[in-house]
């Protein structure tokens, strides 16, 4: 079956050889160049075998419309964003389908601030795209390509400036890292070994773009990493996704601690060792993050789901740390985007400063249990279903920020319509698995009634 091209706030995604062609990439690059105006635009990509083909199309599109492509090469998505901001470029394009399988690829568009386009700006871009009328510059105005081979240097320098590099190096931690055959395979081993002084045991560290595990860093996909941690007596295991923005952690016993807990540990370290300030997380992030923040007396602000929504909120309220429960750590003083490298550095710093093991650190944070469910609907039914839920839970003070979210203090339940499928997603979290299942089940029942 033909997979449709998916055009939305997170960029343009498609299956290469199917809906995503060089012509697609060319037109969107032309539209982006027209949208941001003449000037430098940073371009980076992950390790997917289709990346080089798309990169060339993007280069041509940018040049023809008067932009100067700054090629960062195979780098993490956060590196593209950081470089865009550092170089005061007009914008940035990351060529990556993130955690989607190998056959997918995508273009993700960044503002000159180094943040992704928000919903309104993305709509403006797509308007330009749909006009299909891109001004071209004359031959004499074409700007030559610049190859920026130090892009990752910029990124790592910022990480090092943020954390106490000496303290980390002194501990000489033993670290396993699962690079998912993605950008981490190019950069993570030298980062951990050379920059942070760890002894490194890498797995899936061939940058082939042929992902040898499911690219989402979920606990069930990390068996190889867990085994590596156990076999080598590592202090910690890190798992990245193909474009290096998300991070999951395996403790010294070889057990995944859950993606939510990555963020909880990072929040703890930033608030304890760096700066106190508000924390921003999306609605579906675990209570454990909230617990860590409240324990330290800082405010917690909830945002809509989607990285750019968290990033923008953080910048607006002056948040010092936050992110998403899927393993996306954001530290705005470093850069307001998800970044597995600052994540690794901060967690290692936490271990170095406290001298504690991952399971000790994790054990100090109360456990919550999350249940996820989805219900297939007809797309147009979604608004009415959500309205009906809002009416029924009117006395529970529901948040309407993104679907419906109800906070019960020590538990919560959330329902929203998916952006990509005709389903309603239900997430519930509570102190016990039974309570979480009960909350999700209650929502499910109400939705089924409404259908």
């Amino acid at each position: 079956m033909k997979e449709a091209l998916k055009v939305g706030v997170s960029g343009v995604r498609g299956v290469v050889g199917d809906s995503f062609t060089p012509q697609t990439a060319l037109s969107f690059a032309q539209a982006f160049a027209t949208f941001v105006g003449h000037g430098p635009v940073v371009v980076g990509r992950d390790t997917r075998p289709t990346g080089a083909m798309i990169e060339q199309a993007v280069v041509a599109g940018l040049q023809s419309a008067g932009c100067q492509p700054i090629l960062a090469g195979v780098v993490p998505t956060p590196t593209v964003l950081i470089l865009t901001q550092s170089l005061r470029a007009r914008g940035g394009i990351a060529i990556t389908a993130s955690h989607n399988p190998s056959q997918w690829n995508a273009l993700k568009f960044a503002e000159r601030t180094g943040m992704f386009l928000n919903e309104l700006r993305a709509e403006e871009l797509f308007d330009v795209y749909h006009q299909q009328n891109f001004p071209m510059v004359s031959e004499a105005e074409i700007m030559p390509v610049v190859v920026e081979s130090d892009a990752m240097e910029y990124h790592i320098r910022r990480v090092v400036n943020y954390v106490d590099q000496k303290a980390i190096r002194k501990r000489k931690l033993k670290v396993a890292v699962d690079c998912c055959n993605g950008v981490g395979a190019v950069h993570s081993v030298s980062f951990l070994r050379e920059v942070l002084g760890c002894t490194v045991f890498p797995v899936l560290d061939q940058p082939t773009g042929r992902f040898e595990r499911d690219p989402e860093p979920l606990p069930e996909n990390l068996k190889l990493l867990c085994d590596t941690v156990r076999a080598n007596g590592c202090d910690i295991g890190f798992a990245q996704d193909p474009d290096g923005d998300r991070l999951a952690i395996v403790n010294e016993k070889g057990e995944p601690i859950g993606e939510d807990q990555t963020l909880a540990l990072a929040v703890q370290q930033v608030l304890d060792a760096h700066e106190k300030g508000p924390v921003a997380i999306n609605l579906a992030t675990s209570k454990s993050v909230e617990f860590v923040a409240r324990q330290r007396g800082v405010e917690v602000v909830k945002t809509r789901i989607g990285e750019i929504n968290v990033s923008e909120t953080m910048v607006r309220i002056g948040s010092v740390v936050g992110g998403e429960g899927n393993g996306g750590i954001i530290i705005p003083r470093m850069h307001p985007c998800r970044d597995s490298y600052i994540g690794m550095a901060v967690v290692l710093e936490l271990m170095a400063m406290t001298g504690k093991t991952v399971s000790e650190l994790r054990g100090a944070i109360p456990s919550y249990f999350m249940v996820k469910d989805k219900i297939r609907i007809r797309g147009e039914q979604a608004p009415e279903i959500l309205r009906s839920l809002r009416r029924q839970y009117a006395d529970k003070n529901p948040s309407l920020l993104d679907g419906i979210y109800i906070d019960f203090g020590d538990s919560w339940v959330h329902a929203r319509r998916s952006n990509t499928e005709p389903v309603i997603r239900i997430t519930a979290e509570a102190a016990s698995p039974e309570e979480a299942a009960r909350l999700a089940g209650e929502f499910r029942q109400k939705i089924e009634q409404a259908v």
Partner: protein
Amino acid sequence: MTLRLASFGIRGFVGDSLSPKVVMDFASAFGTFLGGRRILLGRDTRYSSPMIHACVVSSLLSTGCEVLDLGVCPTPMLQYSVKAYEASGAVSITGGHNGMGWNALILIGNDGAFLEPLGGENVLDCFHAGDFLKQPWDKMGRVASVDTFVEPYFQALEEKLNAEAIRRAQFKVLMDPVGGAGCGYLDSFAQRFGCSLVPLNAQPSGYLAREAEPRPRSSSQMASIIKHLHGHAGFVFSSDMGRLSLVTEEGEPASEEYTFAVIANHVLDKKAGAVITNCCTTRTVDDIAALHKVPVVKTRVGQAYVISALMDEQGIIGGEGNGSVALPSFSRAFDGFLMMGLVLEAMAEKKNRLSDLLKALPRYHIVKRKLTCESSRAYRALEILPERFDPGEEGRVDWTDGFRVDWADGWIHARASRTEQIVRVISESENRVTAEQRAGDIVRIIEQEI
């Protein structure tokens, strides 16, 4: 209205008709035609060439082709290399003899010649249908840079020519590659053939310091200095190294028509064989062939047609009056380095100065005129010529490619260019006034029509 499509390529103005989308579709069509096999890629130094290069690489990778990237490479050198790398074809990105702002994709077949019309029509059909081969992620093509093509090329050229004689003559040679694809290779040539090199406009900047079309007008820089520098010969190239015009040691810029004539005279002296040329090349070539008692075969204008006839007729040499020559025993390309080598070889073997070689040729007065005209109207303008132009009793009319009339003293030819939006009028006669008069008559009639 600047886009020109032909079976062997596409040419247009950057920022106008030659959009990246058109380039990408055309390259995708060629990649589809080749079925994702091995392909060579070369480009010149024009400002727009890297951008077009990126389009072509992306398209070819998407069709699963294995791309061997020769980087900045003269078109004839690329054509020569097709067989050596066992490629199924090649693409040359070059503005050729056109001015700033122009660029083109030239498609080359597995024999190193411009893609022949049958294959080219398949590419055009695919281009128009827009239905391209699109490989999935695990069958993407690959691209690799290649720089091993230079030595074998010059090695073959050395073997083809009497290198010993050229080296012994110790020529001082001026070369002007108009800042194009040839810049990086002039030294290799000079070293192999023991020449002392004076380069002119030889920074590979893509900036055109003169007209890119080799002819006396674009040779004026070289003509003004060659005598003072005591150069033995001056060579003025197009930016793809496919065309050449000559400047003598005395500073006379020879008409580009005589490049082919000088070389044909030399080649036929050594070995007899059929000569292939287009229907609007100087009559000097016919005279030289008659002197050597060999036949001349006339074709439509353009490298593709001349090379094709060269193969069909098993000719010994082919060329055109725009300053181009091919030897089928070397390659199926109009090749500037080969032409330069042959001229030097003629000078060395005959112990002649370049001006002597030119003086030995029967010469005519030739008048060339260009009329700007949309190609959609050009053919109509030519069609009315027989009604309005009276060739007289003796005139013989010929329609091989456009309108041609032959008289005892000369000929006139008018045709629509296949690469630009112009009508070209060429008139040649023993008598300058007659040549100019006939050209004037034809130009007036066409101007009235358009």
